[in-house]
């Protein structure tokens, strides 16, 4: 079933689901969107457990968003909007994760190259597919830095003195990781003779 669905359609569905997340604000529509996402996972034959594992990142983000809302608006009027927004945020990024598990980067590049130059299509497809890797890596760096004693937990970030730790402990390692990942992907692409001909070629695997 999943193989019969074209990659273009999968990309279209995932982008639409992501866009709808901004328009959904009531619990009923959020529940409907949840069902739509679950249906997409099942129809596209995406690995449910891997997606669930990657969703751990959203827990941290949800806590940060809810704490910020409570600090600004108080417990009574801040908790529900904060919770709603954090759920919206989950549903905004979840289709991207589903997409990266159900469509290969080559298929995404092929679909995007219909509207973009091939090189930009390749870069964009790689970036879309590595969004969850970057988020996962950021999450791991964040947890490791907290274990090392960096003052970057949601509560500690209320104090502006601790913001420097975010730059040193989270932003710089993530940028270095981005550089390393770009280098590895470019070497892998070169090893597969990427850019050898002017006209785009691909292995239909």
């Amino acid at each position, binding site marked *: 079933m999943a193989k019969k669905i074209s990659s273009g359609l999968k990309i279209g569905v995932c*982008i639409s689901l992501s866009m709808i997340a901004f328009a959904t604000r009531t619990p009923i529509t959020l529940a409907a969107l949840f069902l739509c996402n679950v249906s997409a996972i099942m129809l596209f034959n995406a690995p449910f457990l891997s997606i669930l594992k990657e969703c751990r990142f959203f827990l941290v983000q949800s806590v940060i968003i809810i704490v910020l809302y409570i600090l600004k608006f108080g417990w009574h009027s801040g908790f529900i909007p904060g919770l709603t927004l954090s759920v919206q*945020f989950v549903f905004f990024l979840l289709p991207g994760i589903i997409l990266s598990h159900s469509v290969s980067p080559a298929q995404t590049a092929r679909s995007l190259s219909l509207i973009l130059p091939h090189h930009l299509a390749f870069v964009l497809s790689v970036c879309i597919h590595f969004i969850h890797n970057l988020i996962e890596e950021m999450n791991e760096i964040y947890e490791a830095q907290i274990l090392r004693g960096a003052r970057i937990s949601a509560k500690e970030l209320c104090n502006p003195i601790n913001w420097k730790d975010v730059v040193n402990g989270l932003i710089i390692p993530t*940028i270095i990781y981005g550089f390393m990942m770009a280098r590895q992907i470019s070497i892998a692409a070169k090893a597969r003779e990427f850019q050898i001909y002017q006209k785009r070629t691909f292995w239909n695997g």
Partner: protein
Amino acid sequence: MVNNMNSPSSLSKRKKLEYLLFLGFCAVFIFITKALLRLHLNIPGHSMFFMIFFLMLANRCVPLKYSATICAILSGLLAIMFGMGKGGPLLILKFIMPAMIIDFFSYLMPSYDQKYWTCMFVAALASSTKFISSFIVDYLLGMDAQLIVYHCLIKSGGAISFGALGSLMVPMVISRLKAYDII
């Protein structure tokens, strides 16, 4: 026809692809932080904080021409694809205009990243383009002219403040990346 991987031409191609991919990752970071900051905290321009930071980072880390603009095009495309922000296809202007200012000033002041005040100056100018993009969107929506000016002034004021704050991280990060021999 098959190029040797170690030949200078193939190496430069690979390096170019590596830089393009890094610009793509910067675009992803802009996209993610823009999504994270959609908190409706009633503070205009707060998404400019990370946008200016990553555009400046792309400009300083990647020795390609128009590196910040390429990064902005990629993040704009991501934002349009995922339907983020107001303005539809015009959304890409919000990304490209600050990036063009940053690229322009990197030619005028090649070492602007070494001082905090030059970073803040470039960031403030880049963030002020928010006025133009907001003006276009509000004008197309058919708002009253005087209201458009007030609305855009408030928005661009916030954007300039947050953009300047975001640029304060640039000298520190660039010096650390140079120390680690990354750039």
